[in-house]
């Protein structure tokens, strides 16, 4: 190989020296948001957000409290439908389908777009039933298949070794971190493509938080992850892209969106810089 380089004639089996050129894979948007506004009681809570969330990447939503990050997240799987007097305008496309289209099946949208909440909310059922109930409701009733999926997702979240001998125990007997991983497993069991996470670590102790964070990193690539976090260091550690929201008056806005590194190291907006450096927010 070295002799080839010296002679200047590339070997047929090597790629040769690295040159600038087109990226081997252009990021594909999994979620496209266009001019999305969100109103509570006809008061604007989130103003005209436009951004793409890229497939297989972790996108962190950062910003001060009340800037509409969680509202934005809930709009993606139409959980905002549950909030009375909440209205969403503009366009949100998940896998190129407009989620506000009248024919959209909300149940299957939510199957595609899983969600994990800030406070672990396992159902007061057994560990097994927590995972099998949503599967059964989505028509997967074959016992062998359900058992296989349960084992698979519990392995995925690293809970299998801890709970495989007590699957029929109450899910509420698990520790906070285990409960949150169970909730993630419950969302993964439905084989979603997108996972929305609303501050999944903030209610956990540092150790459990670290375990969940590692888990989120392991899910990168297989799932498109959108995560709301107040922990800037965490966002920096795990995210590929970051979106910075700010609240002026009572209306939230998207200030800046870009690669995580760019947002944290050379933000183009002064508000972002101030927030990142802890001057404001």
């Amino acid at each position, binding site marked *: 190989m070295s002799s080839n380089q010296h002679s200047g004639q590339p070997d047929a089996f090597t790629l040769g020296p690295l040159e600038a050129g087109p990226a081997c894979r252009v990021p594909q948007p999994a979620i496209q948001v266009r001019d999305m506004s969100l109103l509570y009681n006809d008061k604007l809570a989130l103003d005209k957000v436009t951004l793409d969330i890229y497939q297989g990447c972790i996108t962190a939503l950062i910003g001060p409290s009340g800037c509409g990050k969680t509202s934005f997240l809930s709009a993606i799987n139409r959980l905002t439908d549950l909030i009375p007097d909440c209205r969403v305008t503009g366009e949100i496309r998940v896998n190129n389908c407009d989620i506000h289209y009248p024919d959209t099946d*909300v149940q299957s949208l939510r199957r595609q777009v899983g*969600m994990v909440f800030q406070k672990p*909310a396992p159902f007061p059922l057994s560990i097994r039933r927590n995972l099998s109930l949503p599967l059964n409701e989505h028509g997967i009733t074959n016992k062998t298949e359900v058992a296989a999926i349960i084992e698979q997702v519990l392995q995925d979240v690293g809970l299998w070794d801890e709970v495989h001998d007590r699957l029929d125990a109450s*899910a*509420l007997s698990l520790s906070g971190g285990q409960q949150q991983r169970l909730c993630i497993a419950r969302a993964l069991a*439905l084989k979603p493509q997108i996972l929305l996470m609303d501050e999944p670590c903030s209610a956990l102790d540092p150790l459990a938080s670290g375990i969940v964070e590692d888990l989120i990193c392991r899910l990168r690539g297989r799932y498109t992850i959108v995560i709301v976090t107040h922990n800037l260091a965490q966002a920096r550690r795990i995210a590929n892209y970051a979106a910075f929201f700010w609240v002026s008056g009572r209306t939230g806005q998207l200030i800046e969106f870009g690669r995580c590194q760019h947002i944290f190291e050379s933000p183009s907006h002064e508000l972002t810089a101030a927030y990142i450096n802890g001057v404001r927010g």
Partner: protein
Amino acid sequence: MREMKHIHTMQFLRECTAQFLIYAAVSLISVVFIWILADLARGGIAHLSWEFLMEPPRDAGRAGGIASILVSTLLILLVALLTAVPIAWMTAILLVEFVAIDSVFGKTVRFSLHVLAGVPSIVFGLFGNAFFSIYLGLGFSILSGGLTLACMLLPILASTAEAGLRTVPHAYRMSASALGLTRTAALVHLILPAAAPVLAAGLLLGIGRALAETAALLFTSGYVERMPDSLLDSGRALALHIFDLSMNVPGGDTPAYASALVLVGLLLCINVVAMKFAYGLQHRKIMT
């Protein structure tokens, strides 16, 4: 230093007074209950026997037993519960799960339930007589008595069920929706089992109220003491029997005491069974 000691003495005295008052209130309630029970037992236990439960009343209730009256009572209760429970619980589900808490519709329904809960039972009796007995032509019958009782039970059952459903954490509903579960699935698998003990407590409250009811039944189910042949027959409820024996029948005190003892025993049994059932259901469906 002395001041500190003074403060501590005051705090100690306050604690003692509070504790004394609380214990006094609790004992008062227990004493009243035990007194009633003891009084009933003293007057009626000698008269109580298997024959008393199994024989029809004779000589206006002075002799014989209360078999036909027990049957009538249970039939009236059955009609009332089978009618009231589904309507009341469905109303509660509607109010909690499908209607915003501050909507005009929700407020109106809740207001009418509160008004209905405050209506004296004699008014229900008159309404039942006018509507079920006369207008619908059901006459003095177990059916019209049961339906009148059902109207009385509606507000109790609906309000307790609403309160029970509201105690179920909202996070369950959010998680269930986020997992693509339908509202019905969440209701059947999560929310109703979680609320089961409160629903059962409300049911017991209703049953107690229904078993004790006299005035509403006087004009609707009548006071014929014969064994009823069908729901369209008149039938005398146990509470009405006690009322009749103690008010209108000279020498009817002893059977009245015995009947009251049976009524209290029945209530206790229903209490125990319903609570066991509710906790069983909660444990099977829901694990805490």
